[in-house]
């Protein structure tokens, strides 16, 4: 089941959901509006099979995303839950402007708590601003015993590029 906004707030008060900083006005009927952080990483080049990103501080006057590029951002808030699974998406107001907030990776694991990395893809040139409300996260009840996620990204609070090459090396070693 998906939690209603009212229930998200109740579970936040009980400590079963954590959102920091939290604003009640960012609650929706069945999700919470999150903000964009203050920095992004811009894809720079592809070297030896690895993507290299450059860090950019988003100016107060805005930063223009260009189509055809992929940027990594993060949520301004720390968001997580020890009890619920999460789904992170963009706001419809941003989708209507052609901005992807993730690249088919919406699922957030129960027990993770961090600033989420966002994968920004713009279909038209679009300006983004630091701390703007940009997406939504919903919370879902679990069915079954919760087994703690030991993922590499669960505690990372900056826009984080993929560790997937490292995973492949680990895999090859086995």
């Amino acid at each position, binding site marked *: *089941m*998906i*939690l*209603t*906004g*009212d*229930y*998200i707030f*109740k579970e936040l008060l009980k400590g079963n959901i954590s959102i920091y900083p939290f604003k009640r*006005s*960012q609650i*929706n*009927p*069945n*999700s919470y*509006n999150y*903000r964009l952080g203050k920095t992004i990483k811009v894809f720079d080049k592809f070297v030896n099979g690895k993507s290299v990103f450059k860090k950019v501080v988003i100016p107060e006057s*805005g930063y*223009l995303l260009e*189509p055809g590029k992929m940027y990594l951002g993060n949520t301004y808030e720390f968001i997580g839950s020890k009890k619920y699974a999460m*789904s992170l*998406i*963009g*706001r*419809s*107001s*941003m*989708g*209507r*402007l*052609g*901005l*992807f*907030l*993730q690249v088919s990776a*919406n699922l957030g694991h129960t027990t993770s708590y961090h600033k989420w990395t966002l994968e920004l893809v713009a*279909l*038209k*040139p*679009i*300006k*983004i*601003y630091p*701390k*703007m*409300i940009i*997406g*939504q996260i*919903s919370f879902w*009840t679990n069915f079954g015993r919760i087994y703690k996620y030991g993922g590499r990204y669960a505690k990372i609070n900056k826009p984080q590029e993929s560790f997937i090459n490292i995973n492949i090396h680990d895999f090859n070693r086995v």
Partner: protein
Amino acid sequence: MILTGYKIIKEVKGGKIKITPFDHNRITTNSYDLRLGSKLIRYTSKTLDPKIKPDFKIMDIPKSGMIMQAGDFLLGETEEMVGSDSYVPIIHAKSGTARMGLFVHVTADLIDIGYYGKFTLQLFATLPVKIYPYMLIAQVSFWQPKGKIVLYKGKYQNSDGPKPSMCYKDFGKINK
């Protein structure tokens, strides 16, 4: 929990789910198939800025179809008005649509409980693809909520066609 097609029919009959027009034949095992409407929106602003009202033009999709080029981004509409005060709708492409390389939303699949109206489709073509008015293009699933329901009263309520982003309307207010 996700509703089965059988349960969607029951809830449409009982009034807890609204789909207008409704056709029994378009129920699937876990969803209802939605048609593309006849109107499209294309932004004409060179750069989009969430603080500024975007320029756009509204077009009709000819009966003979229209080709979207790879990289094209247009806003469409569902032919149906859809909503529920009891369940949370989520929009998906039909798998046949996706296999043609066409996105129907841009990471905005979740509909607020209490919304009722046409859905605005965020059409993004990754390959050249021909679209026709009233073609089956998307599907909607319904999910059971947990907790007290407070209904949506937002700026897109009762949309009767594709709606461009209205982000600029409350940008200053909500981003304080």
